[in-house]
């Protein structure tokens, strides 16, 4: 929903014209915000902020603040300050009208499920779920390692590059490796992964001239369809048809073709889109059993699960439907070096626990979880901070005063009042909170040869500029000295360069530059 909040005001109003979006956004609000919206639904005028605060008990004021901020961010509430400097809130009129309409007459989807006489072989719900999971896994495998995927999806390679942007480090010489966020992405649960991919897809849509508001509205509409029912393709607009193909590759939709018509069937992944990320009532079957002797048994035949478990455990055997591994210190050190944290590993194991151990509390044995955390902290036993040591203070008062000052500025690391010494944190450049300078430095370092060539090119261009200028000056003087007059009138100022000649179009770093220069020189010689 942050994506929705970041859209500009005009697009948000257009989004709110669709009653399904209003409902989806209502579902995603925090509970207090939902209550406020429903209470204000039938109030037409502004409500003062004081009255809103009276609805909340004293200890709920922080939740109240959070709810209000969220509502203002999504432009559901508009805040007005009147002359008496009192703030009051009003519900967004488009949102209000649409939500009221939705409450009164249960809004029907723009399309209805097709009758069963036309639709021949509708897949059962299990088949549909298996299909969706299969597609999603294939997509993920292709994302992380294109050699392992058996069948490639229809995404063009540029689309895959967009998805891989945050997850893999793209280097031309070596094979692309997963970055830290890539590893964490693999260990997230399916809903979070799906939302990440869809966010990338939507933010990339602007480059392909598709309005993100249309995308978001179609996706949210899709989440209100019934899983397993077929909907006719000719009820979709042109843009939506484009999107349907991409969504089918991701496993959100299954496309089928009959004799005359073609239809699409939304899967569970699509209808779960509008469910908030925190409550995942439709949890898929877990498959991992962790034993107290640090062994891992995963009852799954999917390659993706095998890859993920290999990230942090040592594989012992792999049978067609069983993966046996062991969690060892070395395999965990490997994982920690790649940027995965112990908490992520433990939560992954807990979320995917096999149903036979899932009822046990805790589903991952305590000794295993504790040992994983201990091994992680073993890597960080020593903390080093660049600092300055100050000693030989002239007197105790000066020392005390300096200590207090340093404590105020939170720079004091250590003080020893017996020997009158203290240590302060050292900072040379001011801290860059955005981290952009660091990113820029990394970018330059990583593409150093490209930058070398760019630098050389710039210097060459400047050198040739100087040469050209000198040449022009010399030629201009030639031209001028040929002209001598006995006229009474002072001679009209001749242009230094003959304007009949086309000046070469000057582009810095233009590789064709040398040849153009020659052409120009030839023309000058032919003139004079």
């Amino acid at each position: 929903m942050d994506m929705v909040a970041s859209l500009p005001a005009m697009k948000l109003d257009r989004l709110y014209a669709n009653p399904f979006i209003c409902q989806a956004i209502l579902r995603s609000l925090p509970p207090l915000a939902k209550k406020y919206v429903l209470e204000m639904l039938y109030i037409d005028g502004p409500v003062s902020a004081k009255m809103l605060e009276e609805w909340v008990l004293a200890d709920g004021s922080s939740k109240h603040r959070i709810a209000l901020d969220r509502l203002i961010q999504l432009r559901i509430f508009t805040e007005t300050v009147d002359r008496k400097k009192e703030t009051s809130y009003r519900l967004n009129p488009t949102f209000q009208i649409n939500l009221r309409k939705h409450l009164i007459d249960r809004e029907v989807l723009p399309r209805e499920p097709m009758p069963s006489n036309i639709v021949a072989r509708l897949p059962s719900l299990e088949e549909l779920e298996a299909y969706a999971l299969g597609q999603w896994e294939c997509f993920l495998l292709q994302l992380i390692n294109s050699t392992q995927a058996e069948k490639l999806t229809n995404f063009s390679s540029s689309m895959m590059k967009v998805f891989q942007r945050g997850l893999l480090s793209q280097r031309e010489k070596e094979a692309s490796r997963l970055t830290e966020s890539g590893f964490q992405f693999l260990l997230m649960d399916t809903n979070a992964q799906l939302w990440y991919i869809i966010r990338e897809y939507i933010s990339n849509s602007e480059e392909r001239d598709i309005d993100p508001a249309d995308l978001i509205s179609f996706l949210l509409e899709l989440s209100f369809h019934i899983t397993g029912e077929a909907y006719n393709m000719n009820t979709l607009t042109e843009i939506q048809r484009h999107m349907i193909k991409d969504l089918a590759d991701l496993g959100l939709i299954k496309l089928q073709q009959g004799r005359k018509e073609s239809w699409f069937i939304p899967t569970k992944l699509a209808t779960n889109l509008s469910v908030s990320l925190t409550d995942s009532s439709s949890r898929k079957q877990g498959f991992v059993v962790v034993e107290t002797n640090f062994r891992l048994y995963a009852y799954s035949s999917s390659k993706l699960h095998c890859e993920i478990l290999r990230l942090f455990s040592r594989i012992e055997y792999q049978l067609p439907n069983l993966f046996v591994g062991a969690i060892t210190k070395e395999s965990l050190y490997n994982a920690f070096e790649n940027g995965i944290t112990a908490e992520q590993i433990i939560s992954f194991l807990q979320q995917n626990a096999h149903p036979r151990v899932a009822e046990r509390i805790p589903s991952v044995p305590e000794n295993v979880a504790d040992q994983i955390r201990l091994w992680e902290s073993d890597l960080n036993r020593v903390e080093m901070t660049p600092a300055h040591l100050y000693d030989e203070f002239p007197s105790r008062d000066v020392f005390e005063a300096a200590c207090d000052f340093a404590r105020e500025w939170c720079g004091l690391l250590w003080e020893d009042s017996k020997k009158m010494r203290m240590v302060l944190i050292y900072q040379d450049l001011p801290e860059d909170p955005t981290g952009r300078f660091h990113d820029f430095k990394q970018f330059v370092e990583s593409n150093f040869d490209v930058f070398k060539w760019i630098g050389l090119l710039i210097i060459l261009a400047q050198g040739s500029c100087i040469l050209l200028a000198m040449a022009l000056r010399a030629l201009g003087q030639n031209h001028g000295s040929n002209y001598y007059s006995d006229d009474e009138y002072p001679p009209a100022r001749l242009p230094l360069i003959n304007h009949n000649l086309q000046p070469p179009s000057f582009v810095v770093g233009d590789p064709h530059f040398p040849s153009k220069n020659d052409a120009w020189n030839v023309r000058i010689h032919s003139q004079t």
Partner: protein
Amino acid sequence: MVNATKGLFISCDIPMAQFIINLNSSLPASQKFIIHVMDSTHLFVQPHVSEMIRSAIADFRDQNSYEKPN
């Protein structure tokens, strides 16, 4: 007059501190890096030795590991 010395402030647990002190005493006098030992868990060392200390600790840690041959 107050003296300011630039360096690295290390805070760790006691065994690691002893390890670093031992590492320091095993080096020849020109390469000794500890400027000051504050107490059993804090040290002040020269700024350029952070990588060396980290790699020495990693080596010490790897000596304890055994990887079963596949």
